[in-house]
């Protein structure tokens, strides 16, 4: 029950998806569509489980007055506030949920990501030392791509934006294509191993 049933469920669900691609007959396509919807619904529960876990751990920290417990109170209040607004009032555009998203979440998210501009620059200063052919290629390409995207690059050489595009579309794309083909082969083999029950690490321990 603990191991065999999950392996059978994974096999049936996975094979339905694969078989429905090769045979769109209603015998396979119908159950595959149902299974697809079930997977989406269960995934929604998984998101809720993740958030419930955050709330549980934070509440535990507050209860025991653990490290940074005051911030956990803020976290729980923010979480509760957003849940209350979204679940009670809906997520329609122009509502309070939308206002919270546009004025609280979006500014913080983009500022968090923009902070990376500073850290990436300091990391580059330390890492970008042209000590080998490989490091030099990485450094030169990065500099060309950065210069090719700003007006000063075009001032230096009028062909720089077009040359940047060529780098993106030829040597960059060639390597990316190799990575994508390798990753696709890996994804296919791992997916098949999971469906066939050869890879069971997602079940956790055997207890």
């Amino acid at each position, binding site marked *: 029950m603990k191991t065999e049933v999950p392996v059978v469920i994974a*096999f049936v669900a996975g094979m339905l*998806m694969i078989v429905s691609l090769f045979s769109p007959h209603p015998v396979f396509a119908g159950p595959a569509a149902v299974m697809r919807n079930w997977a989406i619904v269960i995934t929604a529960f998984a998101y809720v489980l993740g958030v419930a876990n955050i709330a549980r751990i934070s509440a535990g920290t507050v209860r025991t007055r653990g490290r940074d417990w005051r911030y956990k109170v*803020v976290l729980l209040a923010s979480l509760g506030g957003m849940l209350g607004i979204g679940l009670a009032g809906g997520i329609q555009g122009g509502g309070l949920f939308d206002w919270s998203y546009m004025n609280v979440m979006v500014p913080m998210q983009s500022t968090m990501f923009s902070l990376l*501009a500073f850290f990436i620059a300091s990391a580059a200063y330390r890492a970008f030392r042209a000590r080998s052919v490989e490091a030099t290629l990485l450094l030169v390409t990065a500099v060309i791509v950065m210069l090719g995207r700003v007006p000063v690059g075009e001032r230096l050489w009028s062909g720089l934006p077009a040359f940047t595009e060529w780098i993106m579309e030829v040597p960059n794309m060639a390597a990316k294509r190799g990575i994508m*083909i390798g990753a696709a082969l890996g994804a296919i083999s791992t*997916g098949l191993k*999971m*469906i066939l029950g050869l890879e069971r690490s997602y079940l956790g321990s055997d207890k």
Partner: protein
Amino acid sequence: MRPLTIAAGAASGGLDGHVLGTWVAAALTLAIFSFLYKDNPVYKLAEHIFIGVSAGYVVCLEYWNVFVPNLWNPLVSGGEFILVVPFALGLLLFTRFSPRAAWLSRWAIAAMVGSYAGFAVIGALQGDLIAQVRAAMIPVYSADAAASLGAAAGGNDYVFALLAVLQNPLTIIGLVTTLFYFFFSREHRGGLGMASRVGIWFLMISFGASFGYTVMSRVSLLIGRLHFLLSDWLGVIR
């Protein structure tokens, strides 16, 4: 359902949602930027607000976009009682909180993993493997590009005509040598070693390009935030 709103416009006599929103966004932006000085209580406060709001946002989206239309309405209003199965499987996920019953969550995890593994196999096959191999099926020599090189006047025209001639051979060499680099069944010595070394050069160019691209996108976001502070909030620039 009628959405909860903040009255727009001071003329209505209510709270001006736009002005309040700008001040809230500016305060939170500055709080996050304060991390550039050092990790401090203001940053930590903003960080925890961000985590809480983001988590709440995800749950609300899943509730309104998945739970209600895909499960609750068809089950309660549509009488599709078969949906009790995914509902029960979803609830079984919460047995993770009980060590004795946690094994029951494996059924739901298996349904997700099996389905998404099936999607992944199909997606990787159709979207990546076949599409990328097909895109790589190009002629080594392009007569049009060679003709353009012959007609090029000089300067930038000549440089880009030459690059166009090199485009297909370099794409093929880059792909093949990159694949050689990822071929681990034999030791990288001799011809295979040379080919994989060339593959590393292409990979380095690709990583450099990705790095440069990422830096520029982050700088673009930074400019966006500074523009918001100086224009929308302070009104210093128009």
